[in-house]
């Protein structure tokens, strides 16, 4: 199915769902500000099929939330949007608020990050759900309320009829997030975008919320896009993963591929920041430095200032998102072929752990002898040394 899709083969078993619901091509979002233009999103492309779960991973400021708001058509008026966003073959870029209205919450719906502030404090939860239903269905208030109670039950809220007439402040955090999910599914949308749906919740509730999302997917065959900064949390439920850095996609592939064979050093570092039982007894290895300023992007590859494998080419030209040695696995990296040859890439970042240095540039300012990133030779020599010493 859809063999022309350059952006990774969909999971074989999701093929029966067929069509691509959402097709984003070369999306870019710029915000002109007083201090210069913020390039929030650059050259982002992906597709989402029915019943498919796409994970979008990245640090804050990597452009993941902005691209989802672009899909919803809810960016501020100052945003300059380029590229194409197609929903069921309808172009969304360029539509105004009114033209987007029938799609929002109906075709594509969104679950927002912070359930504490995302519900209106002065209306009951049922009222807010009913409003979402009535926005797209010409039904009576009573019918809309009944529908609200129904979806509350669907997302696992006990005593939904009593709960519907309560205000958000009477709900716990997990319950509010469930209510947000209920709001997103009340009109049976084709695409659900979940922006960090579990970040504000504690771990046990996180699992329940994700289970609920998967159950919804199974029941409605909606395509789900989960945005997160913590790949570990969603690893079990996503089909494909898209890693974002500096406003663009740097690596893309099936979840197993991404976990097993990273082809971009940033992904290596990102996974290294997650506690992993296999690395028990080892320290977490954070990536040195800070994400790039979206106003002043570094020349060449945006990750090059922090990358242990960076060579001159990385600092000169930004690489394309290309298929790697493994099919369906794409990376935006000049060094991905080289990375493939490194046996335990985690160690690339496993150095220099004396204190956490926020800004490596300040170190070189204080002592010019310290290199910001080690030279490739030095890293390889060290890896070799370590391997021989540990084995």
């Amino acid at each position, binding site marked *: 199915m859809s063999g022309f899709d350059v952006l990774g083969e969909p999971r074989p078993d999701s093929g029966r769902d067929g069509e691509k619901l959402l097709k984003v091509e070369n999306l870019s979002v710029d915000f002109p500000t007083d201090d210069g233009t913020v390039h929030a999103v650059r050259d982002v492309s992906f597709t989402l099929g029915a019943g498919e779960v796409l994970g979008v991973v990245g640090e804050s400021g990597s452009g993941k939330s902005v691209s989802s708001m672009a899909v919803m058509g809810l960016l501020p008026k100052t*945003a300059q949007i380029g590229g194409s966003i197609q929903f069921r073959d309808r172009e969304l870029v360029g539509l105004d608020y009114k033209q987007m209205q029938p799609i929002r919450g109906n075709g594509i719906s969104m679950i927002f990050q912070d359930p504490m502030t995302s519900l209106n404090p002065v209306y009951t939860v049922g009222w807010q759900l009913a409003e979402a239903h009535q926005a797209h269905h010409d039904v009576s208030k009573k019918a809309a309320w009944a529908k609200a109670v129904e979806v509350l039950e669907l997302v696992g809220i006990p005593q939904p009829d009593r709960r519907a007439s309560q205000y958000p402040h009477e709900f716990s955090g997990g319950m509010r997030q469930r209510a947000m999910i209920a709001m997103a599914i009340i009109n049976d949308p084709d695409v659900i975008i979940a922006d960090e749906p579990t970040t504000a919740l504690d771990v046990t509730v996180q699992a329940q919320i994700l289970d609920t999302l998967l159950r919804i997917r199974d029941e409605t065959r909606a395509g789900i896009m989960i945005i997160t900064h913590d790949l570990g949390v969603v690893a079990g439920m996503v089909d494909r993963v898209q890693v974002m850095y500096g406003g663009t996609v740097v690596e893309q592939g099936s979840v197993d591929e991404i976990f097993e064979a990273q082809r971009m050093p940033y992904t290596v570092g990102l996974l290294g920041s997650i506690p992993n039982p296999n690395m028990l007894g080892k320290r977490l290895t954070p990536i040195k430095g800070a994400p790039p300023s*979206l106003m002043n992007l570094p020349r060449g590859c945006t990750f090059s200032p922090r990358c242990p494998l960076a060579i001159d080419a990385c600092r000169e030209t930004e690489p394309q998102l290309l298929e790697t040695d493994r099919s369906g696995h794409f990376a935006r990296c000049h060094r991905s072929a080289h990375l493939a040859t490194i046996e335990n890439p985690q160690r690339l970042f*496993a*150095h220099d752990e004396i*204190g956490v240095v926020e800004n490596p540039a300040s170190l070189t300012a*204080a002592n010019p002898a310290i290199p910001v990133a080690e030279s490739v030779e030095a890293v390889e020599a060290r890896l070799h040394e370590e391997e021989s010493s540990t084995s």
Partner: protein
Amino acid sequence: MGAPAAQAPAPDSAEASQFDNTSARKQWQVILRRFARHRLALFGFILFVLLVLFAFFGGLFWKYPYTDLGFKRYLPPSADHPFGTDRLGGDMVAQIIRGTQFSIQIAIVVALLSTVIGVVLGALAGYLKGWVDTLISRFIDLLLVIPSLVIAAVLVRNSFVVSVAGGSGGSNWMIVALYLGLIGWLSIARVIRGMVLSLREKEFVEAARALGASTSRIVFRHILPNTIDVIIVNATLAIAQAVLLEAALSFIGLGVQSPDTSLGLMISLNKNELTLHPWLFFAPFVFIVLISLAVNFIGDGLRDAFDPRQKRVKA
């Protein structure tokens, strides 16, 4: 680990404080730059500086002293007397210089006094909570149930007696300023109390407490610096309010008394000249508006500079 240890500089305190300073300076630079880019605020600032120079040094350069009352009365504005002459035959420019000076100095005393009282009491109430908070908050409630103009008028009425009895030759502007300062601290105290109440629960305050910092150190070094934006903006706006409140008091005859003067008193004395000799009314009026407009612009610009939230694009 076999990795070569990087020669990270030892995090000694000198090094750390050096970093702190740079970041603090940068923050101030950012705020100043935002302020400078706020055109109205910059305009207000320049206007205010000019007004202060005019009020305090204008008299040195203007050809007539305010004591010279030998001109023809009620002369309309001319090249010789740009604002005309008043009912006593004094040059209006000289009178305005003096009135502006009094109005500005009263306003600044009021703003300083009310800000200091408000910040101290508000911080005490918010930080100590308990009965101190109850006492201060109830006292504020109490003062809020009587219009402040009336409290001011009652207090100032007393100053007529005080200034005469005190041998200050009837000069009462300082007393008026002190009394206005004594009743002007309510709103800033409420705001600071609210901010301190939430700041005292923050982790960095808990950390300071755990390290054994004294109460005054916590309040003055850790909590209040976080409210500095609100304090500065409020103090600025308090200047404008003080100018207007003083003018209102003078108008009902319960403010500054001769031999002192103020722009408000000048308008009040000339209120019946509005149709016949309008320059006598409008000259001090325009200067009051200029002072308070300039200060309001500065306050607004500072608020935006400290809190650029409304202009920042969500990314």
